């Protein structure tokens, strides 16, 4: 099933890229379409961040991930590069678990 998901998603992603290069500019050049395209990644990434921080299956919990994401926020505020942000989050969560705190 994972291979199916990869294949279908790859086709969908390629289709959007190819479509953009192919259609006349007027087709997509409507303000609400452009604004929605700007808002889509914001909404989806925010939702993914929230769900992956607090959800376990269908329940909401607070565990070591919250501390990890909080550390990531600090790293982002300090303008740390991507790899540092991700690494800081992982280390914080792992550290709390190793100490038996969360």
């Amino acid at each position, binding site marked *: *099933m*994972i291979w*199916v*998901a*990869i*294949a*279908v*998603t*790859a086709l*969908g*992603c*390629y289709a*959007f*890229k190819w479509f*953009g*290069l192919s259609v006349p*500019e007027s087709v*997509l050049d409507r*303000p*609400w379409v*452009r*604004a*929605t*395209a*700007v*808002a*889509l*990644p*914001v*909404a*989806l*990434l*925010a*939702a*993914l*961040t*929230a*769900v*992956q921080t*607090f*959800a376990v299956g*269908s*329940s*909401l919990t607070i565990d*070591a991930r919250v501390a*990890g*994401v909080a550390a*990531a*926020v600090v790293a982002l505020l300090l303008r740390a*590069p*991507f*790899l540092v*942000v*991700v690494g800081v*989050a*992982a280390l*914080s*969560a*792992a550290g709390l*678990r190793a100490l038996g705190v969360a």
Partner: protein
Amino acid sequence: MTDWPRRRRAVLRDAVGVGVATGAYGLSFGAIGVAGGLTVAQTCATSVLMFTGASQFALVGVLAAGGGTVSAAVTAVLLGARNALYGLRLSSLLQVTGLRKAVGAQLVIDESTAMCVAHEDDPSARRLAFWATGLAVFVLWNLATLAGALAGTALGDPQALGLDAAVPAAFLALLWPRLAQRAARLVAVGAAAVALALTPVAPVGVPVMAAAAVAVLAGVRWRDALLPGPGAAS
């Protein structure tokens, strides 16, 4: 304007620099991919075939959280919708047809678009910027994915390593630069609230898809507040 060999060197240098920088994302994607239950081959195939970072993280993240194939694919493809707007912006700058268009389409991503648009007044430099950046990122992204996946396999238990916290941190880091406008921050808060509210009642994966509705609503109602100035690529 300086002579072409010098401008060409500058464009190529920038392209490699961007490629190296995105390699860091690729490294984390590789590690998160295998931690999320994909094999090394599946993780690498994702980088070659999809080649659009945020969508790849979303596909792996939703699958690893126990979401179905459909919700994982829909979320990832919706995240890739912005590439259509990049393509639209690029079509007049690149003027590609046939095989070049088929290959070039795969290279339409945030970085190649930004670099091409940055040179839009210079027809030779903008084409070179697109192809060089796209190819540099493609090569380094895929090498980094492989390295990250192999490292992730060697590392062991994802939870003890905090890799489950690395996933939301990666999404947050991808989101961060998009929050410059107030309207975007409101969209982010609204989408997160909708997704969390639906988590206890909807199947895994559906809450994130539902958050896309917030984007459509905001696009229709606040379109002027959301649209960046001319020339912005992302």
